[in-house]
């Protein structure tokens, strides 16, 4: 009888140990950062927009005539590189894909409408006259889309650092939009 009780006690002790070990595996003092689907969508879409926009910046770096346009694209390139690193780190930390599932239609379907198409980049590269005006118009449209996704994160996101980044991105891009609008009025009005 005592033997059986002893065995029972040992079993309970083992179970307790096991459950303690299981609890120990969970980082109890540091809860996992809370994020939602909007955070993930914001990061995935922004990364995709950076990838598309990069092609305009690279072309503008070699072909833009206006010094202010060159300065603006260089600054944007540096900002995007930094933002890209942060955004990739968060997605990887959450075990989320860096790009939206292509089978969802994000790249083939309606979502594609709000993107720079390969044909737009090709058109820019083939532009002979008014390269600056074309690059400015393409960047304006693209930055408006970036701002829209950032503002979506500000209202619908959950992860505070991502929301803070979105606020900062929307403000910075809006400043660049304002400069591009002034540049465009200058370059096309004179033409």
């Amino acid at each position, binding site marked *: 009888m005592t033997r059986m009780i002893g065995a029972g006690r040992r079993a309970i002790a083992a179970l307790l140990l096991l459950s303690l070990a299981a609890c120990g595996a969970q980082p109890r003092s540091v809860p996992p950062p809370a994020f939602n689907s909007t955070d993930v969508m914001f990061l995935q879409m922004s990364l995709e927009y950076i990838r598309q926009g990069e092609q305009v910046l690279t072309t503008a770096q070699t072909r833009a005539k206006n010094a202010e346009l060159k300065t603006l694209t260089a600054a944007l390139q540096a900002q995007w590189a930094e933002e890209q690193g942060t955004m990739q780190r968060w997605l990887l930390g959450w075990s989320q894909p860096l790009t939206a599932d292509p089978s969802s239609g994000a790249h083939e379907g309606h*979502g594609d409408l709000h993107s720079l198409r390969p044909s737009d980049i090709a058109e820019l590269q083939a532009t002979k006259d008014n390269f600056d*005006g074309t690059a400015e118009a393409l960047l304006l449209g693209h930055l408006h889309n970036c701002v829209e996704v950032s503002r*979506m994160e500000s209202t619908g996101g959950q992860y505070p650092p991502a929301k803070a980044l979105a606020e900062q991105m929307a403000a910075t891009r809006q400043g660049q939009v304002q400069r591009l*609008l002034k540049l465009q009025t200058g370059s096309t009005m004179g033409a």
Partner: protein
Amino acid sequence: MRRRIALALLSIAAVVASMFVAIAPASAHGYISSPPSRQANCASGKVANCGDIVWEPQSVEAAKGSKLCNGGGSRFAVLNDASKGWPAASVGRTVTFNWVFTARHATATWEYFIGNTLLASFNDGGAQPGATKSHTVSMGSFTGRQTVLARWNVADTANAFYSCVDVTIS
């Protein structure tokens, strides 16, 4: 167990997220950036206190057929406010209007009006715009300060995008 639930929730979130990516962007499309339209002057900060339009000058979308600068929609009534002191661009007898796009919709027509006078109409026959779009339009017999209303009529929806451009013709 908690981990399993968390994982399940995560994968649901991922599926929902990818669904949103496919359908989310639906509001924003295009406007005239030069000569600057009213929404461009708001977005560039040249005209103050415009409200939400500063963030999305491309979103002036409403049912086709309106003669109002905001297209008669529920948003952006500020664009109809003649007392707002809109700057007018100095232009000649013909003006080249340049568009900015955030989405390149299949296009029926582009129309340009001063008042009830149709200055020009361009039929794209359902084609999508290219990277950029420009139209050169004669101002006809109009002189002095005028407001040009541009309408981008989308081919596959009932809507159009509206841009008003204030000009001084000389």
